[in-house]
């Protein structure tokens, strides 16, 4: 195919991001026309349309090879402050698809609530921030886009302002987020102190000559890693995740635990791969792959064990999402000088894409259950399949896929990830991951067991079918299934995009 930059001006490479931002603004304007009326269909439609079009454009770019090795490499805008390449487009696809699903699902969730337009536009703004995170080529852009993602998220988590759980979740999310962004900013300032630049490529070339400031650089790297740990809900900044995911409106939990986490990884991949090249940095004593390896092991183990002890499905999913952050961290941990870094990081990216579908679907199912006024614990789910077999089937798909059982996308992505780690010589990481995966089957299958096998403890009165959530859940389920046979192109794209980072 003809490379895109021969047909379009360079700035057009950020079209997906611009589309998301534009959608947010349009939503604001629509709300401004008549703030007092609720038009859920129009609002959800605009949001979904915007994210789908962003998805379409990003997908088209990705297929057309925009910014990828085949067509002249990454497209740099604003002197490299924004970079559009395979990685950023790949992650934009994740964000846009999650945003689309969440928008559609929110149609029912938000029925009869106020501030719907604000909800959708905040989601779109956060998605904009995420996609900008994916294409940040400078620590300044990283920080700005990180905040652009975080700030709407805080508000969204506390969206149910009369619900104490939601408010508490929002508060905790905000507090941890504010601290970690401060830590992150300080880390950036230290890196700037050492290198005199915020551009990732210039940082990379300057950090090797840090001289006696190597300690400062090391602290800076650790602090930046801390900022990412927050965004990806990894240990030690994971405290907020269970609370925030549990208290937030379920579509927002879905959005945060899938897209926001992926965004954290998007930017972490780029920053660490580009700005702190393993070859020069590790030899200085700043062994960040080791740091991430430790974080990965602790995160996945802690997340899985905590998830296993939960009684509340949403909270279990929250902890499991911490565990999955641990798996994805392998993409940063199993790196070494001269190792197959591109393939392990690409595998992690592919896992995040699959995760985007299965985890969003799982949380949206929880949203549907909340919509039905069924309780939140495992017991409350008992016998749900007798009432809603199709939805429960979808949930079963999500659960088994999250556990990494074969006929679903989650299996292949986990396999690729662990395989990549082994390839890089980090077989122990893969082993820990595999053991954790096996363990996770226990609590995932509890949901399945409750839905299908247990007898209902009471009678259900599910009421009308929430069409929006239904559609979104089914889309997610189909996505999870389709990603098994279609995993090939996905992982190949991801790995070539990741390899380009290390080139």
């Amino acid at each position: 195919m003809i490379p895109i930059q021969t047909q379009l001006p360079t700035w057009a490479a950020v079209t997906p991001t611009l589309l998301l931002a534009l959608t947010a603004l349009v939503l604001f304007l629509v709300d401004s026309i008549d703030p007092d009326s609720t038009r859920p269909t129009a609002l959800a439609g605009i949001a979904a349309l915007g994210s789908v079009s962003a998805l379409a454009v990003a997908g088209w770019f990705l297929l057309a090879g925009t910014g990828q090795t085949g067509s002249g490499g990454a497209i740099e805008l604003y002197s490299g402050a924004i970079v559009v390449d395979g990685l950023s487009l790949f992650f934009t696809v994740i964000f846009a698809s999650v945003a689309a699903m969440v928008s559609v699902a929110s149609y029912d969730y938000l029925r009869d609530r106020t501030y719907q337009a604000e909800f959708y536009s905040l989601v779109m703004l956060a998605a904009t921030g995420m996609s900008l995170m994916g294409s940040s080529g400078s620590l300044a852009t990283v920080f700005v886009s990180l905040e652009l993602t975080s700030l709407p998220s805080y508000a969204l988590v506390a969206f149910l302002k009369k619900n104490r759980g939601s408010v508490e979740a929002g508060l905790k999310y905000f507090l941890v987020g504010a601290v970690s962004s401060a830590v992150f900013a300080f880390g950036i300032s230290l890196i700037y102190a050492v290198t005199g630049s915020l551009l990732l490529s210039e940082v990379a070339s300057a950090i090797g000559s840090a001289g006696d400031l190597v300690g400062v650089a090391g602290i800076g790297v650790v602090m930046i890693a801390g900022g990412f740990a927050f965004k990806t809900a990894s240990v030690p900044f994971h405290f907020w995740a269970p609370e925030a995911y549990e208290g937030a409106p379920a579509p927002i939990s879905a959005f945060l635990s899938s897209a926001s986490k992926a965004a954290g990884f998007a930017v972490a991949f780029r920053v660490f791969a580009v700005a702190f090249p393993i070859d020069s940095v590790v030899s200085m004593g700043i062994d960040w792959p080791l740091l991430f390896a430790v974080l990965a092991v602790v995160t996945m183990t802690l997340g899985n064990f905590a998830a296993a002890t939960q009684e509340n499905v949403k909270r279990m999913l929250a902890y499991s999402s911490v565990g999955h952050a641990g798996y994805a961290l392998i993409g940063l941990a199993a790196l070494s000088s001269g190792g197959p870094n591109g393939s392990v990081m690409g595998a992690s990216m592919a896992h995040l894409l699959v995760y985007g579908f299965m985890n969003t679907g799982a949380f949206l199912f929880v949203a549907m259950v909340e919509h039905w006024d069924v309780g939140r614990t495992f017991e409350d789910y008992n016998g749900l399949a007798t009432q809603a077999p199709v939805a429960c089937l979808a949930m079963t798909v999500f659960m088994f896929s999250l556990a990494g059982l074969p006929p679903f996308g989650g299996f292949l992505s986990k396999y690729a990830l662990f395989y990549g780690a082994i390839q890089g010589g980090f077989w122990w990481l893969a082993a820990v991951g595999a053991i954790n995966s096996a363990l996770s089957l226990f609590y995932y299958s509890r949901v399945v067991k409750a839905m299908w096998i247990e007898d209902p403890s009471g009678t259900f009165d599910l009421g009308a079918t929430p069409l929006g959530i239904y559609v979104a859940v089914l889309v997610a389920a189909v996505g999870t299934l389709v990603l098994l046979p279609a995993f090939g192109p996905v992982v190949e794209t991801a790995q070539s995009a990741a390899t380009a980072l290390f080139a």
Partner: protein
Amino acid sequence: MIIEALIAVTFIAAMVVMLAPDEVAGRLAAVLSLLPVVGSLYMWSGFDATGNALMGGSVAFETKLSWLELGGYTLNWHVGVDGIALPLVVLTTLLSTLAIVSAWTPIDDRQSQFYGLMLFMEANLLGVFTALDFFVWFVFWEAVLLPMYFLIGVWGGPRRKYAAIKFFVYTNIASLAMFIGFIALVFGLGDSVSSLDMPAIAAALRAGELGSLYGIPAATLQSVAFIAMFLGFAVKVPIVPFHTWLPDAHVEAPSPVSVMLAGVLLKMGTYALLRFNFTMMPETATAFAVPIALIAVISVIYGAMLALAQQDLKRIVAYSSVSSMGYVILGLIAYTTYGVGGATFQMIAHGLISGLMFMAVGVIYNATHTRMVGDMSGMADRMPVTTGILIAGAFGYMGLPLMAGFAGEFFIFKGAFASTVTAGMPLYTAAAMFGIVIVAGYLLFAMQRTLFGAFRLETDYEVGPAALHETVPLAVLLVTIIVLGVAPDLFFGMIQDAVNPLLDFGGELS
């Protein structure tokens, strides 16, 4: 493309049935499941493969497409059948249809889901027996577990949750062990393979390409991987001492599910053992001949002894399956044409016979609502046809000549006696033959107590003969068993053809 069509048709049938209303689901599933039966019979009639699929023989109905590339390894969509796989495919389709028909009576709740899952399982089983790429094979292998989990868990007996979880956990951990073992082997092969294609890996392994991995020497690696895979498959077979999930699962599962479980799912374990352990690493297998043979004999004797102590008819049949699978292992380790071929044949035979037994027990249970030996007697009075078939099946189990069971066991013993894998092989074989006596003992004992004598059963309704749709599957199975017993060469020829190449390896044995 017939294999893809077969699998796809079954999947689509599963979907259709899943969405169909409960009232028609059973009939619809039975009709739709005839399609794969026809397909598999067509494959049988058009079968033209020679040799073993993994050993460079020609493969029937083969398709090979590149699926995805992962870190230097290509994963292919590679399916095809040889003389070992085809009989199992036929067995699967046939038994599925019969099991579905036999489910019409006992399953009265959420029918469309039940039949949908049955068909879904059938599709995955077909995938397991036809896949020639490890990855594809593994996906299907694991995918079989999910419907089985639900089938036991939702429609099972009083302790169904326990049984379902136990089944699920046992088999999944086993799969993990097996998976790790196999992948370690593939890594150990290094650059000599560039895909997870089973023929390629088999060739490389047999050519001794295995290198060291992370400092583990090749020999150790091969042994460890062999053990890991053996354990993984042993759970599925099951072999003593990994058999404890089986009686629970069988007892709790509804009879049609038991039919599938005993008839086809157990064969996955032995099939995989044959395909992986015994085909790819014959040296290691023969090196471990003594423990394997020992385990086989123990399975035979111990399973039979346990069966002897049971009161539950289903439990009796379940434990006797453990015993029967012991014969298969014994045949496999013999490494002779008759041993391995007989083991393969015994898989088919046992699938049919145990299917028949479970089905017959299920029919009796549908009528009496009990399976306890002590609760009833003289069933022959009220259900003469069913009783007759059950007795015929029991004789088949005991290895009565002219029935499939006899052929299978006879081939195994013949092969095992002649085996030179280890010095004590005749001894082990003799010990295993002793198991037949026990089988005869417990089966006759149970039959005698339940079927004969004066009718006694405490019910508030009249127990009458079984319905036609319950009897027909039994009859079909019985006919098939007898046909195979009379003419084992319907399958045995192609089995032998596929088995022979793998006996030829570098060791001093032949």
